[in-house]
C-alpha cells in the first residue's frame, strides 16, 4: 500500500504552570501594557464569576454558567481578534466578550432571563450566547462566507466545547470552511467535561485538534491555561485566514474548575483529586508569576486591581438591578420588522392579562 496523505498535530505551550517560559516568546509577551491588560481582564472574569454565582445563590440571578479556569483561553482569543472580526460564542466565554466590549451588566441581564442582555451596545455584530450546542458554528461559517463574497479582510471566530464537537453541525461547518477556504477559526475549548461526560467518552479521537483533518483544515493544540500561547496561536490562525489561506482548528486544553452551571453538582460525577490537580495548573497563577518575574506586577498592584474590579462589578450589578424591566409587550415587539396583522390582538390580550404572576 502506498501512503497518499500524512498529518500531524502539534501542541504549543509558552508558559509553564510556574509562569516560566518553556519556549521563545512572541513580542507582545514583553509588552507590559498588553500583558497587564490581559491579566487584569482575566482577574475580572474570575472575580465576576464569584459575584455572579453569589447572586444566583441568593436568588438575584438565574442559572449561570461560570468561566473559572477558562480565563487564559477566553482572554487570549479576545486579545488576538480584531475589532472587525466577529465572535460566535457558546455561553461561558465572558473573557472574550468583555475584551470586545460586552458589559458585565449585559451578561447579568442575559442570565436573569431578559433578552435585552443580548442586545450588546458593543460589539454590534457579535452573536449572542448560543444555547443549542454546536449550532453556532455554521453561523460563523456563514459570516466567513459573507466576508469572502465581499472580499473583506475579516474573520469569524467560532467557539465550541469538547462536547459540542460531537454535533454534526460542527463538522458540517468545518467541512464547508475547508472546501471554501473560509476566513475563520474554530476554537475548541476542551475543558475535560460536557456536563458529566468526560472528553474521553465524547470521542475516540486522540486529540480534538485532529477533527480538522476531516474537513481538510489544519488543527493545533494549545495549553489553554497559557494566555501567551493561546493569543499567539490564535493570532497566527487569524493572520492565515486574513491572508486567504483558510481556516484553522485550535484545541485549547483547559479545565472547568466550576460546576457546569449553578444548576449542576459536579461532585456527583468527577473525582475531587482531578479537580485539585487542575487547580495546580490553572491560568491566573502562572500569568501573575510571569508578570512578576518581569517586574510588571506586584502585590500592591494586585490589591489596587482587586479594588478597581470590585468597584466595577458593584457598579455593574447595581446597573443590572436598577435596569428597566421590560413589560409583556416585548414578547411581541421584536418578532418581525412587519408584524402580521393578527398579532396585535394577542398583544392586547397579553397586556390585558398584565404582568407575570409569581411561580407557584
Amino acid at each position, binding site marked *: 500500500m502506498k501512503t497518499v496523505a500524512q498529518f500531524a498535530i502539534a501542541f504549543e505551550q509558552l508558559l509553564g504552570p510556574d509562569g516560566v517560559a518553556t519556549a521563545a516568546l512572541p513580542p507582545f509577551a514583553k509588552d507590559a501594557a498588553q500583558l497587564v491588560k490581559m491579566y487584569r481582564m482575566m482577574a475580572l472574569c474570575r472575580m465576576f464569576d464569584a459575584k455572579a454565582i453569589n447572586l444566583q445563590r441568593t436568588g438575584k440571578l*438565574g*442559572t449561570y454558567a461560570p468561566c473559572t479556569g477558562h480565563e487564559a483561553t477566553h482572554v487570549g482569543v479576545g486579545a488576538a481578534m480584531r475589532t472587525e472580526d466577529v465572535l460566535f460564542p457558546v*455561553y461561558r466565554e465572558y473573557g472574550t466578550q468583555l475584551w470586545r466590549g460586552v458589559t458585565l451588566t449585559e451578561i447579568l441581564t442575559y442570565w*436573569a*432571563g*431578559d*433578552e435585552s442582555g443580548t442586545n450588546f451596545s458593543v460589539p454590534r455584530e457579535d452573536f449572542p450566547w448560543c*444555547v*443549542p*450546542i*454546536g449550532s453556532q458554528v455554521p453561523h460563523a461559517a456563514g459570516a466567513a462566507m459573507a466576508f469572502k463574497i465581499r472580499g473583506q479582510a475579516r474573520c469569524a471566530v467560532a467557539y465550541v466545547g469538547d*462536547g*459540542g464537537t*460531537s*454535533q*454534526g*453541525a460542527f463538522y458540517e461547518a468545518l467541512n464547508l470552511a475547508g472546501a471554501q477556504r473560509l476566513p475563520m477559526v474554530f476554537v475548541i475549548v476542551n475543558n475535560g467535561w*460536557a*456536563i*458529566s*461526560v468526560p472528553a474521553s*467518552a*465524547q*470521542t475516540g479521537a486522540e486529540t480534538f485538534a485532529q477533527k480538522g483533518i476531516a474537513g481538510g483544515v489544519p488543527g493545533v493544540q494549545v495549553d489553554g491555561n497559557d494566555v501567551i500561547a493561546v493569543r499567539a496561536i490564535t493570532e497566527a490562525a487569524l493572520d492565515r485566514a486574513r491572508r486567504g489561506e483558510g481556516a484553522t482548528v485550535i484545541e485549547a486544553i483547559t479545565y472547568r474548575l466550576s460546576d457546569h452551571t449553578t*444548576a*449542576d453538582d459536579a461532585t*456527583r*460525577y468527577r473525582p475531587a483529586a482531578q479537580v485539585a490537580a487542575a487547580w495546580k495548573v490553572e491560568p491566573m497563577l502562572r500569568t501573575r508569576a510571569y508578570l512578576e518575574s518581569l517586574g510588571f506586577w506586584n502585590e500592591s498592584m494586585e490589591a489596587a486591581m482587586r479594588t478597581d474590579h470590585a468597584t466595577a462589578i458593584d457598579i455593574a450589578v447595581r446597573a443590572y438591578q436598577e435596569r428597566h*424591566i*421590560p413589560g*409583556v409587550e*416585548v*414578547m*411581541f415587539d421584536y*418578532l418581525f420588522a412587519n408584524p402580521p396583522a*393578527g*398579532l396585535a390582538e*394577542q398583544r392586547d*390580550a*397579553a397586556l390585558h*392579562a398584565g*404582568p*407575570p*404572576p*409569581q*411561580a407557584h
Partner: protein
Amino acid sequence: MAKITLVDGINMALGRALADDPDVVLIGEDIGINGGVFRATAGLQQKFGTLRVQDTPLAEGLIAGMAVGMAAQGMKVVAEIQFMGFLYPALDQVANHMARLRNRTRGRITCPVVIRMPHGGGIHAPEHHSESLEVLFCHHAGLRVVCPSTPARAYGLLLAAIREPDPVIFLEPTRLYRMAKQDVSDDGKALPLDQAFVMRAGDDVTIVTWGAMTYETLQAAEQLGQEGINAEVIDLTSLSPIDHDTILDSVAHTGRLVIVHEAARNAGLGAEIAATVAEKALYDLLAPIERVTGYDTVMPYFALERAYIPTVARIVEGVRRTLQG
C-alpha cells in the same frame, strides 16, 4: 406504597423495565453517573451498567439515529432528549425513519423506541429549555405521543410506552417533575395508551388540556366551582392519537368547549381538537369554542415565561366567554 413525585415515577418505571427485560437500553446525555439533569435515571447506571444505561456523545440526531438501528435489532430503546428545544436535530430520524420503517418495510423492520423529554416551562431555565412542541410529533403518522400529568400515570404510561412495539414520544411536564406527589406502587402494571382521563366531572363546560396545564386548569375549575359553574376537565394525556370520543361525549353533555395548552396557539394541537368538534359535534355547541394558549411568539426568556404560560385567570376568563357566548 410510597408517596412519590412524577420524576420518581419515571425513575421507577425505567428501573422496572430494565429489570424485567434485558433488551431494554437507556441512552442519552448525562443519564449515566449523573442520573439525568432532572434525576430521572438516578441510580440506574450504577445498577444496570454502562452499556444498558449509556451516556452518548452530545448529539440528538445521533441518539435518535442509533436508536433506530438498535431497535431494528430488537432492543427496546428508551432515549432521553435533555430539553424539548433540543429535539430538532433528532426530528429527521424520528419522522423519516422511526415513524416509517415498519410501514416502509411492510412490517419487516420495526422501531420499538421511546423518546422521553421534558415538556413546557415554568422552571426559570435558559432559552430552549421550556418549549412545548408536541404538535411537531403529532402531525407525523407512525408515532404515538403521550404526556402524563401525575406520578401514577407517568409510571403506568411509561411502562406501556416501553412495551409498545412502535415508537412513542413521551413528554414529561417539567414543572411537575417534583411538584405532584402521589402513592404509586411499583407493581409493573402498565396503563392503557390512547386514552384521555376525565379529571373532574362537570355539566356546564368541557375543558380539555394536558401536561402541566392540567394543574392551572383544575385550579380554574375549582374557582369557577365556587361560583356554581361546573367545569368538566379532561386531561388529554394521549396527544396522538387523540381520544376524540371522550371529548365528544363531554361536549355533547356540556355544549361548551375550552381548550387549554401551553404551546403557541397557531397550528397548535388545540386546533385539531377544535376542528374535530366543529366537524363532528357542531350542533352540540351552544357557544363558540375557546382556546386559551401560549401566544404566537417565541417562548420568552424566563423573566416573562409566566406571562406566556396560560394562567388560572386567563382560563377562567376563557370559560366565562363561552358561557356568555
